[in-house]
């Protein structure tokens, strides 16, 4: 059974159609990458999957792990195993990173009928994940994302992913703005979580990331439609030629 199955998904924001019939199937263990020009709808797709409420779904179905994703609230999607690494992570002054993440993990554990973790059990786990992402312990007690640099915010997203252990992680431009060292750290964090059960949907503008997180499939999203799909080599081609040529050809993924 596929983990994520998107069929003819149409979504609008304020009456303007942004996603115009997306079809995409992700099987357990696969890494898919979505590339596309600015404003093509990549974050919209990610947001719809994470159940951001500002989108209106006008057509189509999305099945996640056998369940109707479009019926879920954001927290239900999260508890069912979906994780979105935000393109622009949100700052939450007044709540420490450690407290926030433990609250989140416990919400998910509770949903799954697992026992909640107290601070004593949780902290070693968090510390381990933070070491993996080469984040200093001082970030434990800092307010969520507040005053973090762009790169620190992105790494913090991956720390959260590592702690929450989703089935499907959607990474929205987690590589943007990272220097090559930080990029390697983030890719390493992601790769350490790859498994035959866990899948990734990696949204990026740059082929560079895909040298480190090697995808099984690359899709090109232009103007709300997937206009081309292929293997990792497609990313190289895009890097070289840009997006304009993709629209000319009829794409397999197109309806």
């Amino acid at each position, binding site marked *: 059974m596929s983990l994520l199955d998107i069929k003819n998904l149409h979504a609008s924001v304020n009456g303007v159609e942004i996603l115009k019939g997306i079809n995409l199937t992700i099987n357990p263990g696969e890494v898919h990458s979505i590339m596309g020009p600015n404003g093509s709808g990549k974050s919209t797709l990610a947001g719809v999957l994470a159940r*951001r409420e500002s989108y209106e779904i006008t057509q189509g179905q999305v099945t996640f792990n056998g369940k109707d994703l479009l019926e879920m609230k954001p927290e239900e999607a*999260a508890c069912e195993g979906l994780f979105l690494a935000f393109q622009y992570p*949100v700052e939450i002054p*007044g*709540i420490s990173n450690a407290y926030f993440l433990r*609250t989140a993990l416990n919400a998910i554990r509770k949903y799954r009928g697992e026992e909640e973790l107290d601070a004593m059990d949780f902290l070693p786990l968090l510390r381990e994940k933070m070491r993996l992402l080469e984040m200093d312990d001082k970030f434990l007690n800092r307010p969520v994302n507040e005053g973090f640099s762009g790169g620190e915010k992105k790494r913090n997203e991956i720390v959260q992913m590592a702690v929450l252990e989703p089935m499907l992680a959607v990474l929205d431009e987690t590589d943007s703005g990272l220097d090559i060292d930080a990029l390697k750290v983030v890719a390493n964090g992601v790769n350490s979580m790859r498994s035959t059960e866990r899948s990734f949907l990696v949204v990026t503008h740059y082929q560079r990331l895909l040298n480190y997180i090697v995808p099984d499939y690359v899709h090109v999203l232009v103007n709300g439609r997937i206009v081309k799909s292929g293997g990792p080599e497609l990313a190289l081609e895009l890097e070289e030629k840009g997006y304009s040529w993709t629209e000319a050809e009829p794409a397999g993924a197109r309806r």
Partner: protein
Amino acid sequence: MITATQAPEHYLGAFDQFNHRAATQLGWLKSLRQEGFARFAENGFPTTHDEDWRFTNVAPISSREFRPASPASIETDQLRSFGASGFECQLVFVNGKFSRELSQIESLPPEVRICGLAEELGTNAGQVREHLGQYLNFRRDPFAALNTAFLEDGAYVYVPRGTVLAQPVYVLFITVPSADAIMEHPRNLIVVEENSQATIVEDYVSLGGSTAPSFSNTATELVAGENAVVSHYMIVRQGDSSFNVSTLRIQQARTSNVATHSLLLSGALVRNNVHPVLAGEGAECLINGLFMANGRQHMDNYMLVEHVSPHCNSRQFYNGILSGHGHGVFHGRIIVHKDAQKTDAKQTNRNLLLSDDAQIDTKPQLEIYADDVKCTHGATIGQVEENALFYLRSRGLDESAAKHLLLLAFANECLDRMNSVQVREHLERLVMEWLPESASHSGEKPAEIERAWEEVG
């Protein structure tokens, strides 16, 4: 002596009676009271035409016939319901009168005095006289005048030079409502001399059960000597039909450092006046407040920060959470007198409105008579941020838990400015208990409220 009177009739009778039977009959004290009453009688209660009272109509107070509260007693067991155990140094007042039985005062460093003011006036009035009534502007402020007229008891804290009080002084004021509308006028005096350090908490509560109105009109004079470091906390969490007007007058000498924190949680009408005068060079003052009004509660924060000397620094941070029909006011006045060059004054008021009927009035008022100063102010009014809410929900928190966490985060901005761990924990528990979302949050109260900040070694 008292001629044209603006004061409601019954205050005159009440004052006459009080002045005759008051515990302390020292001559200077009697004339202080008389002067207080004369000022009150002259001015009467303020109206919304008065600039300082523009957003707060005190008619619910001025239209009622409050009688001075009779002495009352409560059981030690009942103390526990106020959730303030654990303070080693604790003064308890019931209906404005010091209760030695309920209080607990550990052995104190030599010359330190922590006791009821009436008691001290009976034994050591000289020291008290030096400061009492010297700072509070009761000529201008009718509530301060009324408090001075009925001045009798309150907390007295005296810390002589070069002394550090390791423990916070926790002062609990319990109002025991009766069938009648009652009033009390606690008057506190805190003197921390040069190079000394102290932490004082004023916590105003009322015993549940009665719906009869009560009026607590409190005043505190806080004197910080040269280089003294003082932390002061003010908590108001009285019943739904109580009115609380409090005035804190702070006098700061050279390089003294005073932080005053307020937490307004409940009451029909609460007005908290904070009036520091930075009289000595290089003094620093932090005014940090959190107010949470819901139902039909009205909470007014009025600040008058006076920079008198050069190189002083003042910070005001107020966060308001308004829900239901709650009405909040932030009125932050800063006066920089002409000699106060190099003043650095900052004021920030942030508010969350959780319902359509909640309301906030926020007003900065800067009066600057010196030319080389830095004054900034800013105010924001908003809702719980959608983006932040979605971020939390996308991590698995349900909507009410996410909202609750965001409100807690907002409250924590204020709590994080408090540096007494013990007091902070007390306030944190209160905040958790009173946060508007907490009632609906998962339907259960956590057995032990945990900190939103984990101590990590």
